[in-house]
């Protein structure tokens, strides 16, 4: 992978995200590999979650308790990088507002916000990465997760890097910018509506004929993978970081494990 020597080295705190931590550690290791290839030193401070479930449920007090832990844990890194547009968006766009009425914390929240990035946009926009050293045989399609797309402008960056993966071809997903129906607690609070949305998404995915669906957020991936498997659609589902890091040799999300 290209890493121009002139770039300053950087200490990145990996914000693993609770879903990657719990469901898909491979994505975390893929993120580490990519960040190191981009010339960064990666540390993983003690952490849990960004606080979004409480924040989006209207419980600001609980969200602040959780978010304080993140502010402390990532106080002394150059960047905070998350393999998720949703969590990175929380840190970057919502922490300052969450602490707007607590001046002593607000400054720390603003400082953290400025240093927080979604993984792929960090690689491309901050570290100037233009290609990766990876192979993936097959056609993939790509779902643009809502927070990454609309809060952080993640659109071209994953496509730029995927274009350099040997053997990979991208079939664009019709309605790639339409929500999959995950929405955090939405998907269990309003399952019927969520079901309609994810069914539409799964049908769109199937119609591309691609063998693999990629996206940058575990929430969407769990939702779409769960629907595809319920529908019996033979589409593998992976986080985009797995492919970019050349770590897509294990079972896809929701597929039987090894051994």
């Amino acid at each position, binding site marked *: 992978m290209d890493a121009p020597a002139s770039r300053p080295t950087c200490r990145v705190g990996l914000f693993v995200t609770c879903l990657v931590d719990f469901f898909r550690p491979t994505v975390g290791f893929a993120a580490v590999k990519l960040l190191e290839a981009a010339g960064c030193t990666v540390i993983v401070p003690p952490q849990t979650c960004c606080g979004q479930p409480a924040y989006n449920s*209207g419980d600001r007090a609980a969200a602040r308790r959780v978010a304080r832990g993140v502010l402390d844990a990532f106080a002394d890194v150059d960047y905070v990088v998350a393999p998720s547009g949703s969590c990175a968006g929380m840190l970057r766009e919502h922490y300052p507002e969450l602490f707007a009425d607590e001046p002593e914390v607000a400054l720390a929240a603003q400082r953290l916000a400025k240093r927080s990035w979604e993984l792929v946009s960090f690689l491309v926009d901050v570290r100037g990465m233009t290609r990766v050293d990876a192979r993936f045989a097959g056609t993939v399609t790509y779902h643009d997760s809502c927070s990454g797309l609309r809060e952080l402008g993640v659109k071209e960056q994953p496509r730029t890097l995927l274009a350099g993966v040997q053997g990979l071809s991208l079939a664009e997903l019709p309605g790639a910018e339409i929500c999959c129906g995950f929405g955090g607690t939405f998907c269990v609070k309003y399952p019927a509506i969520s079901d309609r949305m994810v069914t539409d998404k799964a049908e769109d995915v199937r119609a591309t004929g691609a063998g693999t669906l990629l996206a940058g957020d575990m929430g969407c991936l769990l939702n779409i993978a769960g629907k595809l498997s319920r529908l019996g659609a033979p589409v593998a589902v992976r986080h985009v970081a797995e492919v970019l890091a050349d770590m897509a040799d294990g079972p896809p999300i929701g597929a039987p494990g090894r051994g």
Partner: protein
Amino acid sequence: MQATSRAFKENAGAALNDPRLQRALGNLRTGFQERRRAAVAGLPEFERLRDEGRAIKDHTLANLDWYLERWEANVRAAGGHVHWCRTAAEARDAILGICRAVGARSMTKGKSMIAEEIALNGFLAEHGIEPVETDLGEYIIQLRDEPPSHIIAPAIHLTRDDVEATFREHHDELPAGRPLAEPRQLTDEARAMLRRKFLAADVGLTGANFLVAETGSSIIVTNEGNGDLTQTLPKVHIVLASLEKVVPTLEDAATILRLLARSATGQEFSSYTTISTGPRRPEDLDGPEQYHVVLLDNGRSAMLGTEFQDMLRCIRCSACLNHCPVYSAVGGHAYGWVYPGPMGAVLTPGLIGVEEAGHLPNASTFCGRCESVCPMKIPLPKMMRHWRERQVERGLAPAVARWGIGLWAFLAARPALYGLAARLGAGLLGRLGRRRGRFGSLPLAGGWTDVRDLPAPEGGTFRDRWAARRRQGGR
């Protein structure tokens, strides 16, 4: 209109299982989304105009009292009358008073969401005045005794077949064997039926897209021309407008007009934009003899100065509905009151109470598409979140959700404990799910697994595996 917003879930379930409705809603993607995209692409300044539109509205709201007084003075100078109304009831009474003063027996109506908000039609009928909706979509749903399901396409929940059946049932004086298979024939039939009503009406009532402080004018935007016939032919023109419609000048109106049609229907400009200032002049050959504006507050002044003030920028273009995946799935009636979709999810709790409309701001994935297409850059998801906060503050959130979030937050604020719980959970589910890779059902996870599988965890959390790797002297 009696709100059924409390039954949102049931309404939505019925809508999702209504194949005719689902077929009708399928028109949104091509009919609105693609047309808007093309129109926006055709105006390079569109994004900057959004910023200017927002600034105009913010400026006006910051001086709303001043602009309303100036607008009112200019209405009077042009020979018009202004009726200030705090509530729906006051607005209904004001309209009835104007009608009675001229002995009115019928009223033609242009499209007005505020007329729906104050439930005007039923009230007029009770008092012996026949209300006649003249917008084609509104006319269709008036025949069917249904509320609108969309702000600018009120009958979007209906198919052509539905409209044909409605006309055959209600236009029973026409030959039964007449051809009505084409939208063209349906449109012509409505045109002929309504032409008589236009010519006979005593009073015409329209809404307003803008009130212009500089000139004391009201502006309506339509495509059919029904609003113009409504306000030109009868003796009396009543404008029913809410107080946030005011803008300072014609220049400001022009800026927002450039955003309105493109955001709404994807047109460059609607067919008819009409600026009305007072009643007919002495030398005019046509036009109404009286011009009244019924100016409605109905809860809006209470939003000013709060975290919901930005909602008062809304120009009712419906772009947020047209691009909302939830609206696209369930249609407008599920929302249970006048205003559907994302703008309704913010406005409705403000107007009828979050106790009544609590579901609406919750039934969103926060996907943000509404805000991204809003010509006034209204932060709709953020305000929906504020309504959720109000619900939590007032103890209105469901107990299960409160406890769940509370327990989760307790753990999430304690990394060691959280790590232990995650290790146990991921380990257990990883082992149980290893063979199939997913769960078709799981205790306590029915909300998820009723409609989709739950992918099994790989087994072992990232943090544990990372720590193990470090201990082994890996990186």
